[in-house]
């Protein structure tokens, strides 16, 4: 571009001082040459990685940490010599907790910045909003948060937990003798797609296990709900029916702090009515005095307190990177750690960052997780993970009280929902289908919601 401009300038100046013209033309050419080579070098020397996490708005509270974790992982990879002999370059955009903006920013990352893969999204609605962009422009999204399942896309790799990697084992634990042989269940959630779907799966599962309908109470509250008095006293009331009662909480983000404060103030102790949470991690507890909450539970695939050398190193690196010893690590950060390492390995295996080839190379890739084992990418684009049940401690950490004996494979289509029990996903050739119906033997049909 620059070269053309200066040449035309030169022509326009033909009648003028000849030496000036020559100078200008040659300067233009040199500048253009420099620019082009700089561009060429940029394209050759770096691989761009997109980070699509909200840095402002309601979700910033959770997603900012993931952005920082990604920057740390990329920096470490570069220190190790980069990837395919090139440096990695992070491209950070801010979709500002605005769901349609997620799609726009994803498009910008892929079309304009030409990123090789994108790590991002937190809420299910933001993921749903970017799905069409990723399949249209054929790029890769790594999604690091536990979610409701009922989805398997060719362009998305789900490194968070599917319901069977979190909700079902959590309920199993509560039903076991160790967990207190719970007979009565409160399913308390925030009113949106993840809690609703998870609770639907759990309700079906509990009924299959012989729990009567009157022993299950389902309740939803709005986002950011802060006045929990009525709900907590309803839980108290439900719990005074002479049977061991537990609360399974899919309450999201900000609403948790007032919820737990109210539980503590109304004197609901974990020994009497334990609360098992799926969205409460170390980060959420950081804003709370946890002394009254000791014994309440959470189910994740990772806890900061897990005692392995990998985890110790990860925490030390994180504190060094973020320059704050008090910042906690959490489960979605581990998911990004696994996802990023898997992507690196798949790119090395494929020898290119071309999304199509990387998507094929991803399946079967196995990398160490932070809990002392290996996680493997399965053909349904979900990974294998251990499931940990932890009890809240007075220092704001979780102590693992139960762990699945082996790794659990993510099950995208729940076996407990009538709509999805016949569906499977396998992205390997020749099936290459995210919602294959084993009953009808056809790909597609119900499922692409």
């Amino acid at each position, binding site marked *: 571009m620059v070269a053309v401009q200066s040449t035309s300038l030169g022509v326009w100046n033909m009648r003028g001082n000849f030496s000036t013209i020559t100078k200008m033309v040659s300067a233009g050419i040199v500048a253009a040459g420099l620019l082009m080579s700089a561009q060429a070098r940029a394209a050759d020397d770096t691989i761009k990685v997109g980070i699509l996490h909200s840095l402002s708005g309601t979700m910033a509270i959770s997603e900012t*940490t993931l952005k920082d974790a990604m920057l740390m992982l990329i920096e470490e990879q570069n220190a190790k010599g980069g990837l395919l002999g090139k440096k990695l370059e992070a491209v950070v955009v801010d979709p500002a907790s605005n769901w349609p903006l997620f799609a726009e920013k994803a498009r910008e990352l892929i079309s304009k910045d030409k990123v090789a893969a994108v790590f991002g999204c937190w809420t299910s609605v933001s993921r749903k909003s970017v799905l069409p962009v990723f399949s249209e422009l054929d790029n890769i999204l790594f999604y690091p948060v536990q979610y409701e399942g009922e989805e398997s896309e060719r362009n998305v790799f789900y490194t968070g937990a599917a319901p069977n990697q979190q909700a079902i084992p959590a309920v199993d634990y509560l039903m076991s003798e160790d*967990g207190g042989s719970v007979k009565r269940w409160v399913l308390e959630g925030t009113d949106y797609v993840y809690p609703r779907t998870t609770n639907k799966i759990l309700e079906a599962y509990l009924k299959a296990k012989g729990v009567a309908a009157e022993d299950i109470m389902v309740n939803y509250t709005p986002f950011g709900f802060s006045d929990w008095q009525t709900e907590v*006293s309803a839980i108290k009331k439900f719990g005074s029916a002479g049977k061991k009662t537990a609360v399974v909480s899919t309450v999201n983000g900000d609403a948790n702090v007032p919820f737990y404060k109210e539980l503590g*103030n109304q004197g609901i102790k974990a020994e009497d009515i334990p609360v098992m949470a799926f969205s409460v991690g170390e980060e959420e507890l950081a804003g709370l005095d946890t002394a009254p909450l000791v014994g309440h539970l959470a189910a994740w695939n990772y806890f900061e307190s897990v005692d392995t050398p990998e985890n110790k190193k990860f925490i030390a690196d994180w504190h060094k990177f973020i320059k704050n010893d008090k910042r906690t690590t959490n489960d979605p950060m581990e998911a990004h750690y696994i996802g990023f390492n898997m992507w690196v390995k798949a790119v090395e295996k494929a020898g290119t960052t071309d999304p199509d080839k990387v998507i094929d190379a991803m399946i079967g890739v196995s990398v160490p997780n932070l809990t002392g084992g290996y996680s493997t990418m399965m053909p349904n684009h979900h990974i294998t993970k251990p499931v940990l049940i932890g009890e809240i401690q007075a220092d704001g950490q979780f102590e693992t009280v139960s762990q699945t004996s082996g790794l659990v494979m993510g099950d995208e289509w729940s076996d407990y929902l009538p709509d999805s029990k016949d569906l499977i996903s396998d992205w390997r050739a020749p099936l290459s289908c995210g919602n294959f119906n084993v009953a009808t033997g056809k790909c597609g049909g119900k499922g692409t919601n």
Partner: protein
Amino acid sequence: MIFLRALGLVLLFLLANLLPANAAEADLRAIIAKFATTSNFSATEAVVRELAATGDPLVERPLAALAEGDLYVRKADSLVFVGKEGGDSVELLDPLSGEKSGEAAKSDITKIKVNNTLRRVIRDALGTLTLRAKEPAVRIAAAVTMFKTPDATNIEPLDAAIAAETDANVKVLFEQARAASVLVSDKPEADKLAAVALIGARGDRDALSLLTSVEANSQGAVKDAATAAIGTINSTLAFWDAGQNIWYGISLGSVLLLAAIGLAITFGVMGVINMAHGEMVMLGAYTTFVVQEVIRNSFPGLFDWSLVIALPLAFLVAALVGLAIERGVIRFLYGRPLETLLATWGVSLILQQAVRTIFGPTNQEVGNPSWMSGSFDVGQLAITWNRLWILVFSLCVFALLLYVMKRTPWGLQMRAVTANRRMAASMGIRTPWVDALTFALGSGIAGIAGVALSQIDNVSPNLGRGYIIDSFMVVVFGGVGNLWGTLVGAFSLGIVNKFLEPYAGAVLGKIVVLVLIILFIQKRPRGLFALKGRAVEA
């Protein structure tokens, strides 16, 4: 290390010899030593039960420590200690005598893990052991635990405890706990009927819970008596439920009032559509956080006073920011509501992002002072202290504000400027300064609301967002420009909301309230208490 161990052994030896009566103690030590070899919760539970079965009051210390997660095994010699954490090392105490027996690095010892089930077992075991404790509070706690976990073997120790008890209140609790245990024993029917009557008279949720399981597990007269008692309890509880809803409504109303009262001035009195109002609340909450941080680090003894100290500071911080906003932005936009709305919206985003940059996007921990934690019972109604204090506080703020508006010269000038700006100016009132100070006052009040709200909500940059809609709702519903309207509006919205919630659920309840307000505004566009007179039209 070896020296310490030797010393420990010598101490043990000495102890064992000096107290010859305590052959039992050696047995206890032998049982406690088993903790070192337990590998899962049920094994630990077996040891706990064995310890509890000795009935020796000495086991209270190790069991209580285990429940708190303070029982450790030293890796080197598999000895069990009570540990007191302090920084990197743990101070080791003898599990029975509580005497110091050295220190250990965290990596040299393993904590004996506990879970909820185990904690419950320990609590029950301790209940039996602490029946004769000196402090009535401990005995009450023991009675409460034993009531919740009835067991036929409890009857005997309870009988003894009842005979020895001098405190009438504790005695009643013991008798109820005994009755609960009688119901699960094989005592004759007459005893059980008496027990059902005793428990039925207690009339609370725990009694209901117990009787429900009795009803399910017994036959004949006992079952009938239980059914009758359950009926009585349920009808009493229904009465208390209504009372509870009113209390919850009042409590929600006080939160709404606090959030809205600053807006009642900036929007209600001055007519500025102030979208940054919620951020003033947030600034107040963050001021509380900063004050608590300083106190935690420098003057830990003052923690219970932190909120009192934070109040004036929060008022100042929010008022100064409010003053800056008024002087910098709003004064150029009087009479242009749409531009004001957009400008203050922008200001709110700037403030949010500024706080996010300074303090980080995550929640900050603001602690409850001891006088704001826990709850007390009025009949069957559990009233939490923090809610009660917030109610009292909101009413105080309201009274103070009313006083300022109605009884001070400044309040008079404020009202004069709002009623008729030109006339007020002609009378020599410096209207621009009155505007600025009024806005600062409204913002400052929002700031102190933030101090109170930090006690029940997240302290995060998004704090204000949650309150802005509710605040506008309250002010518009109550009648713009009328403080009393704000008061009545806040409490009626709170109570209506809390009465709807148990039936309609929180989500639908909120929608119904919104629809009701829309309908109400259609009927009475000026809200509950409309200002009358010509000034309003201007």
